[in-house]
């Protein structure tokens, strides 16, 4: 199969870079500021310290490093080089690794975006408001919803927005005290049950059955007059689409609950279906995943939250509106759930997502989902030929969507090598480690690659060849996998201190204290 793929001789940069708290020299400076002009000092007639209430003056300077500008730059450049960071091949499932067009970075770094204050007058914000509104229209077309907002700073925050909107909706009907349950499934991202619980709801989790999704009977047994909402993704991370989802929505609606579509796995269905037409009241898109905005190693992100016209009055404020000639920030919305985060969103990320959608167009977006699903099934065929690899729910015979969940359970049983070992070995070949699975693991030793539309067939073949090599190693020479990585910035981590209160250290000052104590 991938025998003709030659694996690279790769080694990560090793800088052995010191912790910055140990670097520098007393008195060295990285940044200086202009002193107040003499006129200012004359007018004040006193020094800066005496303008501070005595009790609140800082007595001991913070023990920060003292470094020249170049030393700081070089240190963080070294750290960037000690980060593999998608410079190889990254098929990180559920996160939809995409190209992040640099033109969008260049544009959003300009002062016309970066140096905007959210409380400026509307007429000085027409450019960003126009883009937000136009992008709102694009998401409406992709989902069938009637209004989007961008305040949520990530997918989880959008799930939280839904939980808060659910409260506002039922409170308006006087039913909130009674409707205290949110239903989800075990394969729905953990942020859904977690945000529902943080918002004060009890969570009902439905387990998977034979077809790879929970049964209608289980749902019917779960709904009641306590049901506030359903929060669900579809397809799930195993690449299985619940074909009964319309019936699910009908049942939850009949019970009086709202239905929220977590579109974490939108990449496989873009242009193929629309949340509103399936009956959902609200949905969420992650702009840092599906829409080409960068992930930044975990944000700044945007969970674009959209809902039906009937629910729009409950959305967080402000909402961007257009009167035909000017754009506005509508903050006068008495039934709004309020705010989930200050201001109105990670605006540069919204601009990047808008730019991505414009660069793709309808045909491009449709083609991207085609390629994603095709590439996943291509990968599946090849991966299942590798010794020790099986897939979840093998009884589901249909083509999977844009992701498939695999298991190395067999490999683990036969060789002792599991997914954590394989992750550590993958990075020796210059490819990023695969994603495993959200908790709880419902197959042993799970992993979940997602090919998406970015990576070439050659990249996918290379990635598969790496996994094939590691499988061979696991069966022939497991020690090399168990002791991996060998070609990385650092060696395998010892993890016992991470859970030990006497040894964990989230800051340098804690580390210094604990190591001094251990030495005594």
């Amino acid at each position, binding site marked *: 199969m991938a025998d003709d793929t030659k694996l690279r001789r790769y080694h990560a940069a090793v800088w052995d870079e010191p912790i910055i708290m140990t670097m520098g020299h007393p008195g060295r400076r990285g940044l200086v500021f202009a002193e107040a002009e003499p006129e200012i000092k004359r007018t004040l007639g006193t020094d800066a310290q005496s303008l501070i209430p005595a009790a609140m003056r800082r007595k001991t300077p913070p023990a920060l490093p003292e470094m020249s500008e170049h030393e700081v730059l070089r240190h963080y450049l070294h750290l960037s080089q000690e980060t593999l960071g998608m410079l190889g091949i990254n098929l990180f499932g559920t996160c939809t690794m995409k190209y992040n067009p640099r033109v969008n970075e260049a544009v959003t770094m300009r002062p016309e975006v970066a140096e905007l204050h959210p409380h400026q007058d509307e007429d000085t914000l027409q450019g960003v408001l126009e883009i937000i509104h136009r992008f709102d229209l694009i998401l409406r077309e992709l989902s069938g919803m009637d209004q989007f907002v961008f305040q949520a700073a990530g997918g989880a925050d959008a799930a939280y927005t839904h939980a808060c909107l659910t409260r506002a909706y039922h409170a308006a009907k006087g039913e909130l005290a009674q409707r205290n349950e949110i239903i989800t499934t075990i394969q729905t991202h953990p942020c859904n049950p977690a945000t529902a619980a943080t918002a004060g709801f009890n969570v009902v989790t439905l387990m998977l059955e034979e077809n790879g999704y929970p049964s209608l009977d289980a749902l019917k047994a779960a709904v009641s007059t306590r049901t506030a909402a359903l929060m669900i993704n579809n397809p799930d991370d195993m690449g299985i689409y619940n074909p009964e989802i319309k019936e699910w929505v009908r049942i939850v609606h009949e019970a009086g609950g709202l239905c929220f579509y977590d579109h974490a796995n939108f990449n496989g269905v873009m242009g193929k279906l629309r949340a509103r037409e399936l009956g959902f009241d609200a949905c969420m898109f992650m702009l840092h995943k599906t829409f080409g905005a960068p992930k930044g190693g975990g944000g700044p992100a945007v969970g674009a939250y959209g809902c039906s016209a009937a629910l729009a009055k409950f959305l967080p404020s402000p909402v961007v509106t257009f009167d035909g000639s000017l754009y506005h920030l509508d903050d006068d919305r008495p039934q709004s759930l309020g705010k989930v985060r200050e201001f109105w969103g990670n605006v540069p990320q919204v601009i990047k997502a808008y730019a991505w959608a414009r660069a793709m167009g309808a045909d491009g977006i449709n*083609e991207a989902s085609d390629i994603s699903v095709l590439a996943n099934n291509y990968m599946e065929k090849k991966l299942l030929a590798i010794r020790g690899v099986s897939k979840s729910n093998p009884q589901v015979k249909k083509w999977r969507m844009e992701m498939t969940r695999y298991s190395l359970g067999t490999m683990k049983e036969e060789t002792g090598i599991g997914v954590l070992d394989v992750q550590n070995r993958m990075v020796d070949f210059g490819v990023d480690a695969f994603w495993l699975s959200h908790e709880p693991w419902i197959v042993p030793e799970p992993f979940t690659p997602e090919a998406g539309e970015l990576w070439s067939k050659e990249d996918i073949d290379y990635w598969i060849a790496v996994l094939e090599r590691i499988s061979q190693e696991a069966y022939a020479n497991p020690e090399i996998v168990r002791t991996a990585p060998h070609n990385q910035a*650092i060696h395998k981590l010892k993890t016992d201190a991470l859970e030990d209160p006497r040894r964990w250290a989230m800051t340098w000052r804690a580390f210094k204290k604990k190591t001094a104590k251990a030495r005594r």
Partner: protein
Amino acid sequence: MQSRTSKRANAVTGTIPSAHPYMANSVPGIKEQMLKAIGARSIEDLFEQIPRDHRLRRPLDLPEAIRSESALRRHLLDTIRKNGSCEENLSFLGGGCWQHYVPAICDEIAQRSEFLTPVWGTPSSDHGRNQAWFEFSSQIGELVGMDFVGLPVYSWGCAAGHAIRMASRITGRREVLIPRSIDPERLAVIRNYCEPSEMASHIVIALVDFDPRTGRIDLADLKSKISLRTAAVSIDSPNYLGIIESEAADVAAIARKNGAETIIGVDPISLGVLAAPADYGADIVVGTTQPLGIHMNCGGGAGGFIATRDDEKYAREYPTLLISITDTVKSGEYGFGLSLAHQTSYGLREKGKDWTGNSVYLWAIANAVYMALMGPEGFREIGEAIIQRSHYAAALLARIPGMRVLFPSGFFKEFVVNFDGTGKPVSAINAALRAQKIFGGGTLSKHFPALGESALYCVTEIHTKDDVERLADALRRAVR
């Protein structure tokens, strides 16, 4: 192979004539190869799991694609040029989002592909980024005087919301006391975190008065409202009105006496000159990260942090990701790993501590760069520059007929200017300033009607004497 190429797209593969720059496999021929490899007839067949009646039956109706990068850039520039920025204008807006100088190196590092594009790897392949995160937490720890710092959350308000919930879980109580001087946006966020009264786990928010002469929390009112039901007293210093809460130590003592936690919110850019909150009794410190090397980004620069003592009582209530230094199998080599991850929502779903997810981790790196560039002297220098420049501005503005500075001392970078004596509303004043390319301070009348026609002015290290004098001149004309 594309024997059935239609005008728009190939019927089997959907390929349109030219390959898309973002999609390597959109090139003709590749899709056919992959289809052949798996034995499928067409891409459409691969969507067999989705029932027919779930499918969208028409092409998407989206604006025309702009595939040319040059044309796309032109379109974006044409649109964003309709904005008027705080660089092109002279801005005195603050209130939760502040214009500070962003060193070029912060942008340089935040734009590095290795940091910008990825998500997660392994402790070894993410080593550099993990170290940068640890250096973020370590430097925040030095500024606030705390040993235990989480990776950032979305904003100051979100940090405060989580901190209040932590305090509620720690004390088993369901009430938080917050001064009325709090940022209204931040309070709106906190309200959601405290849940409405219908919810079984609702946390009551009781507002404490502030002293109308000083802008500081009214200790008598605090004493009258605190009780054994109080989980936490949460104050910000400087507060929304710019005022340094100089009796914060008394607040902490009152809280402690009642078995409540003290949550102190800070703007870390002040901490080269203002006392570390740990030194005056904070149990949980929260705050913003935006001033530390992040552009305002129209409010999208927001970020928050949570810090405490390194005590299990707090550690085991953190909802955030936590990154700890540890050893590797090679003697003398250190690395970093996630600590206490099992207690997050990733580990425990609805039984986790609140929730976590993507946050503003890229900015944590820019924050680390900023703090390292600054060092102790940089923080002292910027703190002094801000306090001198803002007090100078307040002094100049207070001299203008009809204008008053309501709390003329004990503030940091923001202060309240009252226009009642001019007979003009803030909106009219700001409109006049706009004509001079000046963004005046934000109006306070909506949320603080008792302050009359007042505006919150923000002056930072970027404002020169000339800038302040230009503002004063423009205001002198505006109030006439």
